[in-house]
């Protein structure tokens, strides 16, 4: 299964194949012989022999780029995550307690927008503090515990809704 990009709202599968000079692009957007060239501080896209200047900046999962007089922002969709269900059965979008313990602190409220890695809840167990962090961008849809509360193993702590 391959990488994909969200291009103007359409999930577009893409891949590269090794070629003698550069790569061959494959996937939903079409096929072409492509390469990114760096000349005198400028970046150029070579596509089937034609060259044109490109500006691009990587920003986490986003790629901001300027080409052919227009600005575009693409989101990278990792192959393993693309096909995972956002609301998988089995409560995959909830953080469960790995072992019994107590809640030290709740860092978010329902409705908060979070980015991957943002701290959600801090728990303590066996004299060890663990910070439960957001596993993807999204909104906090439910907080099931409060500070000071005790919980059992597998108890649901926080539920996230997927990125809109």
């Amino acid at each position: 299964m391959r990488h994909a990009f969200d291009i103007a709202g359409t999930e577009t599968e893409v891949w590269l194949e090794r070629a003698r000079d550069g790569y061959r692009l494959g996937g939903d957007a079409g096929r072409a012989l492509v390469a990114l060239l760096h000349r005198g501080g400028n970046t150029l896209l070579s596509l089937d022999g034609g060259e044109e200047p490109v500006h691009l900046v990587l920003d986490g999962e986003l790629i901001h780029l300027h080409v052919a007089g227009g600005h575009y922002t693409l989101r990278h969709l990792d192959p393993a995550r693309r096909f995972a269900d956002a609301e998988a059965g089995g409560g995959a979008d909830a953080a469960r307690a790995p072992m019994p313990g107590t809640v030290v602190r709740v860092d978010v409220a329902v409705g908060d927008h979070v980015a991957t890695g943002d701290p959600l809840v801090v728990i303590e167990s066996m004299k060890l503090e663990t910070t439960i962090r957001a596993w993807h961008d999204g909104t906090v849809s439910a907080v099931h515990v409060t500070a000071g509360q005790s919980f059992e193993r597998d108890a649901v702590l926080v539920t996230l809704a997927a990125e809109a």
Partner: protein
Amino acid sequence: MSALPFDTLLVANRGEIALRIIRTARRMGLRTVVAAHGADRGAPALDAADAVAWIEGATGVAAYLDSAQIIAAARRHGAGAIHPGYGFLSENATFARAVAAAGLVFVGPTPEAIDLMGDKIRARSFVADRGFPVAPSATEDEDPGTFLDRARALGGPLLVKPSAGGGGKGMRIVRDMALLEQEVAQARSEGQRYFGDGRLYVERFVEQPRHIEVQVMGDAHGTVVHLGERECSVQRRFQKIVEETPSPVLTFEERQRICETAAGIARAAGYRNAGTVEFIYGRGDFYFLEMNTRLQVEHPVTEMVTGTDLVEMQIRVAAGESLGVSQADIRHEGHAIELRVYAESAARGFTPTTGRVLALRQPGGEGVRFDQGVAEGQRITTAFDPMLAKLVVHGPDRATAIARARRALANTVLLGCETNIAFLDRLLAHPAFAAGEVHTGWLDAEPALAAEPVPSAAIRLKLAAIAALATRAIRDDADAVPALHAAIGAWRN
């Protein structure tokens, strides 16, 4: 030219105008201090100024409205003059008085002129009394009881405006007289909310009106000149987006009349420093709308066709110098267009966007001027209005100016925050704009322009190629394939 009575100028503004003022001040040999708020860390004006005076407030806007703080900052940095830019305190007579009281020079008109023209109703009366054309209107003040009847008597359609308003805020068009009463009530409550003043006046609304304004400049010695008109009819909900000079619709004779009317008004008001007289134009007629007693956002188009530096003129006039030019000395050459680059999403109702300027490349080329308001690395927040820069383009004629503007837009790179650049290009490409057939209601009646077109297959291919090549994981996947199998390719037996 005598030496200026001050050696340091405090710029009480931000974004592109702060940088633009600093550049001229620097060229004139002045030391510059810029009043800056923490939300603007990384802004280009901060680097360009000789010193930064940090200001604080409950909000960023509140900081720039804090008259005492700003004057204190000027004092602290030894600034002998304060340039207020546009917006904020630029048309605040109290501030202008306070600056003078502090022994500092206010780079702008007299407090009296600000007072006069700041009150829209008073300004209108002043202008009408001296025989300059105004739109038939009814003000509430004259007789609140008969206000609605007098309004109705004007005949529709009508434009309801808050008397303390400006910049297009709080205005509403009423075509159906049956709705007049409720529209008036709503306009009143809005006026109260936005400007702290619920008074209204009503004017006959010119259908498909064009917004024509004239740049005037006066000195302390009674000389007033005009520097030509600007057409600012491309507006979205009364907010200007594209301005140009000369107006494509005016005849030579009309231009003369409007400009001389503007100069006459300014002269009658004893106007000093830079100002702009705004008119509504429709089918050969024009009416005084209001006068803005400050430097305007779109002043660069005037500078480009007249070869002048209005900020320099402002500073010199404020320093007491005489203008040194007569009307005959003002020349006009070619055509100039200004495009306002905003951090907003045209496709999503022009909502403000945020982000960080990850890359910025200014366009170059003949006749291109880019007044940048942000620098690479700077965060774009909703603390202030979303204007990022102004692209101003000059050409020997309108068509060339448009072509250069489109090319400059295509060459402008701003990554990390969504902007209205694509929307501006679609606007310029529209046949109505190309034909100069615009009016203040035109853009609002073209909602399709806001829609982002779906990228063509050719563009998608380029985007996919760039994205794939830029993503390390995708390149690694390709590089991992052994050379033999990559050479054989997708073969099946």
